[in-house]
């Protein structure tokens, strides 16, 4: 029996992860793009970690952190009555961590590619740091922003290991499409697995196509 819930859940997770990361990554990337200090190097390491760590490592630590038997989980349960393991909120936190470098890196390299004279000109014309970031710098790295958004979205769709470890496979809450494929294969329902897999392939191809297509368009109109 094919259900659409896992697909919509995957899309919902990817959508929310992308929005959260977009607003999180801009200040982080902006801070990292300015002059270097040892603190920033540490921050860069942290931001890049999810890129090299196996998802199972992230999943394992999240599981430990979320458990009400440990301090962080106990704190959340005691003061906020929240339990993150086996919840959509928990998945969202996992996805944000897991996809963090996919949003920060493109934005950071976009900002780094801008000549510093652009920023300096803006300051000398009396613009504040905020105005410079939003009115001058960001509009000039649209392709990078788009790349960050699309890669984050696509990467979250492809998320599996973290979800498998902290999700608990609850229909409509944590049973995302990649997990549904795994379950159907395990249950030897190759037909169902095929359907879910094909939908995921179609979504991913469409997203990547749109990315490369619109980036080409943006490149053409770029002033700098």
């Amino acid at each position, binding site marked *: 029996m094919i259900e659409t819930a896992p697909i919509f859940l995957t899309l919902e997770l990817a959508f929310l992860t992308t929005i959260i990361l977009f607003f999180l990554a801009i200040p982080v990337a902006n801070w990292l793009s300015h002059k270097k200090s040892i603190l920033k190097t540490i921050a860069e390491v942290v931001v890049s970690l999810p890129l090299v760590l196996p998802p199972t490592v992230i999943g394992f630590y999240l599981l430990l952190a979320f458990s009400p038997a440990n301090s962080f989980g106990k704190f959340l349960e005691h003061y906020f009555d929240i339990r993150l*393991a*086996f919840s959509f909120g928990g998945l969202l936190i996992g996805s944000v961590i897991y996809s963090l470098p996919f949003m920060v890196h493109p934005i950071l390299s976009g900002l780094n590619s801008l000549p510093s004279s652009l920023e300096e000109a803006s300051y000398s014309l009396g613009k504040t740091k905020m105005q410079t970031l939003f009115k001058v710098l960001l509009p000039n790295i649209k392709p990078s922003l788009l790349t960050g958004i699309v890669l984050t979205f696509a990467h979250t769709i492809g998320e599996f290991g973290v979800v498998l470890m902290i999700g608990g*496979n609850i229909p409509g809450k944590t049973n995302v499409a990649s997990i549904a494929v795994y*379950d159907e294969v*395990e249950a030897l329902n190759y037909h169902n697995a095929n359907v879910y897999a094909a939908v995921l392939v179609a979504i991913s191809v469409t997203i990547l196509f749109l990315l490369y297509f619109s980036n080409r368009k943006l490149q053409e109109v770029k002033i700098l």
Partner: protein
Amino acid sequence: MKIGVFVLGFSFLLFHPAGSNAQQKKITVAVAANMQYAFAELKNEFEKNNDVKVNVVVGASGNLTRQIVQGAPFDVFISADTKYPGNIYEQGFAAEKPKVYARGALVLWTTKEGIQLNSDLHFLLSPKIRSIAIANPKIAPYGTAAVALLEKNSLVEDLKNKLVYGESISQTSQFIASGNADIGFTAKAVVLSTQMKNKGKWIELNAQDYPPILQAAVLLKHGLQKHTVAAQKFYEFLFSEKAKDIYKKYGYIN
């Protein structure tokens, strides 16, 4: 220099342990997750009396079945149910019909303070219990049994929002042991294992209240062809009195 490194690397490949002791007989057994603890003892017992080394691959029965059907070089398959070995037999990967070696027992287990276990499962409705772990009933026989038990008590609808699903009995047990789930249904063999003994508390559920968890093993064609004597010997050992004692010790019903 570069060539030296290459030769060194290559010689490691050549003299990898897998290829070196071809003298000793070796078989590979695929073992369902719930059986891994009892199997460790089975393996020691068998290796003590036979000059055969037993390699173990542990996984969910469904996963192992898929691997076998795709040609994984396993000699014997010890499943958590009868469906998957039957499937292997039907697809022509088995040397003979699968046989039941033991019957699994279901327990309710918690590692939380302040949860009183009760054989009347309606205590699960208490708001103190927020999440109940069970193995995915689609692929894990212990999960199917747990759902049947809840259905018998007409609790499935009321507990629906509390259920969380492990992809195998191992993950389900891990959810309970780590305290992420307040309580859960798992195999008796898990709570009796040396690793989990004395962790939290558990009660055994009445075996009449859920369909029997019959666990079958099957001698695979690969085993019969490649390691004829050793594989057959091990397969027979699974049904010996000695093996039955071990199953019993780990909570299986004979």
